[in-house]
């Protein structure tokens, strides 16, 4: 790791130099919200944003993508056979991704890249990705990253971490990918003398995050007891199973596979899916192991805060970005649910 200094007056020209080597993504304002989007040549990421509405997971894991193509025309060779298609795995960089969102990519990676199976599209896109994270000087009131295994200045997953110091950025270059990117941008001013300022800014930012969850007892809970806890009906009472929480969550990875045909041309697609949908688990016979919204809401929280914890021993599957808290139409708050789960003791009523 080394620290470099980037004067803001040099930022735009540096980013400009990157566009030949990388497809660039960054936060841009779309209507009332910010989202991550491809940056056109000359377009700058809007680094004054606080949090984006959607997470940046679509850069490595598109909401819809074609898996295979085929023809149903029996006069064609290889008809009815799924074929791989060329995909773009050229280098891409996200500028201004938040540290929590980079961490989320690492959490999801455990699902898509494991010893038994590798999802080729995820693995290759992630390999092509360089992340230039932007530390949070002013977190939102809904942020609880510091108690969710990350933090506003977390540099553990990013290739580069930018700290906004007013007229300039201090950048921690964490990886070889990060070195390659700052090299191409021409950022090489030594900032090591000021490295301590990053730690000071980190402490100040962490102090602003007063919203916290407790997760220390989740691993010790008995799954079936937590599953049978009396608070799930109450937690799920207002839920309308809209799935908003799952689509905007940076650590939700579930997907559906669907075939689409026009004439004799077909393709197999995969699309983000949501465990809030009844169809998600419905058997062909009509039997549904998660037959009601309470079962589905419980699945979402149990997955993030218990099943993932037990399966991977990698902490909770939540980075505390607060999107689901902000955007749930009925104000279901994962922080409250996490506390209910962490405090749960069988036989004792919970409120």
């Amino acid at each position, binding site marked *: 790791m080394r620290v470099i200094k980037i004067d803001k007056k040099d930022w735009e020209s540096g980013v400009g130099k990157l566009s030949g080597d990388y497809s660039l993504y960054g936060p841009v304002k779309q209507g009332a919200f910010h989202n991550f989007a491809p940056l056109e040549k000359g377009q700058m990421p809007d680094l004054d944003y606080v949090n984006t509405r959607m997470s940046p997971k679509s850069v490595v894991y598109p909401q819809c993508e074609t*898996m*295979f193509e*085929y023809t*149903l025309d029996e006069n064609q060779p*290889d*008809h*009815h*056979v*799924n074929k*791989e298609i060329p995909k773009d795995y050229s280098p891409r960089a996200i500028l201004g991704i938040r540290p929590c969102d980079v961490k989320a990519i690492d959490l999801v990676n455990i*699902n*898509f890249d*494991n010893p*038994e*199976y*590798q*999802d*080729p599209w995820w*693995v*290759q896109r992630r390999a092509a990705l360089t992340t230039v994270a932007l530390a949070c000087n002013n977190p939102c009131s809904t942020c609880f990253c510091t108690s969710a295994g990350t933090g506003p200045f977390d540099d553990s997953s990013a290739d580069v971490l930018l700290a906004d110091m007013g007229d300039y950025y201090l950048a921690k270059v964490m990886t070889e990918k990060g070195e390659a990117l700052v090299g191409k941008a021409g950022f090489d001013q030594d900032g090591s003398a000021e490295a301590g300022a990053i730690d000071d800014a980190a402490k100040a930012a962490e102090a602003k995050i007063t919203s916290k969850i407790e997760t220390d007892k989740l691993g010790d809970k008995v*799954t*079936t007891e937590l*599953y049978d806890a009396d608070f799930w009906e109450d937690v799920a009472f207002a839920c309308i199973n809209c799935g908003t929480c799952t689509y905007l969550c940076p650590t939700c*990875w*579930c*997907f*559906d*596979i*669907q*075939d689409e*045909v026009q004439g004799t041309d*077909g393709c*197999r697609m*995969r699309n983000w*899916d949501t*465990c809030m949908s009844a169809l*998600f*688990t*419905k*058997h*062909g*016979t009509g*039997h549904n*192991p*998660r037959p009601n919204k309470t*079962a589905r809401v419980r*699945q979402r929280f*149990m*997955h993030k805060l*218990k*099943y*993932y914890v*037990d*399966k991977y021993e990698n902490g909770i599957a939540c980075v505390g970005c607060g999107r689901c808290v902000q955007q749930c139409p009925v104000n279901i708050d994962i922080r409250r649910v996490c506390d209910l789960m962490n405090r749960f003791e069988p036989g004792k009523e919970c409120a």
Partner: protein
Amino acid sequence: MQNPYLPIPVRIDKATIETEDRNLKTFKFVYVNPEDEAKFQYKAGQFGELSVTGKGEIPIGIASSPTEKGYVMFTVNKVGLVSTALHNMKEGDIMGIRGPLGNWYPWERMEGKNIVIIGGGFAFTTLRSSIVMLLDPENRKKFGDIHVVYGARSPGMLLYRDELAEWEARDDINMHITVDGTDDPDWKYNVGFVPSITEEKAPKGDDDTFAIVCGPPIMIKFTQPVLDKLGYKHDHIIMSLENRMKCGIGMCGRCNIGKEFVCKDGPVFTLEELNSIPKEY
């Protein structure tokens, strides 16, 4: 990079109607590219994703035995979009399979032991695979006594009837075929539900005896107390589950029960393992 979502092309070599309601058909697939057979080396209890272009994929237990070479066989209940499309396909048509997927019945652990196979309805497919595998001369000597309790609603709803008759005639396997009811005066096997026939015919549970149970939820529900009564320990009761699946490789996130994915950590679990996870199946 190996793509675990890409089906191997196969040709429908034979499609056979199995049951009197015509809802179950057995498909025998041969590999379009013969070298693909080496990629599909499976064990009894595993499943595959059957892929019909234009329709989708369905996870189905493998009905053929690893000892049967040159083809792979699945018995499919007509129930939804893909299975209906499959039923309408004809011999010679091209489709795809992915796999083998999931774990298998714990043959390594059961070596040298007695095995009681308990099956009901159309969940007999991976049990057929198991029986054919066990009866292979090379394998038969590795296991102790073998009992099979298999039931269906009526004689016409039993799968693999010719083979059942062959196995009945053998002396190295104890068959206990049953139907819920029949008006056939020549019916020479049992009449009664699987749990009660199990109670009558199955050997007592001990350290050297394993029960493999696969069937509809109602059968499993009533068979379990019988096995308890017979003295089977929960880590000696082997069950195979099914849940809605898409990817079949633990990635798409829908078939989990607790922290276990039925597709990848299962579909085979001991009852002891199932006791510690929610009943979401």
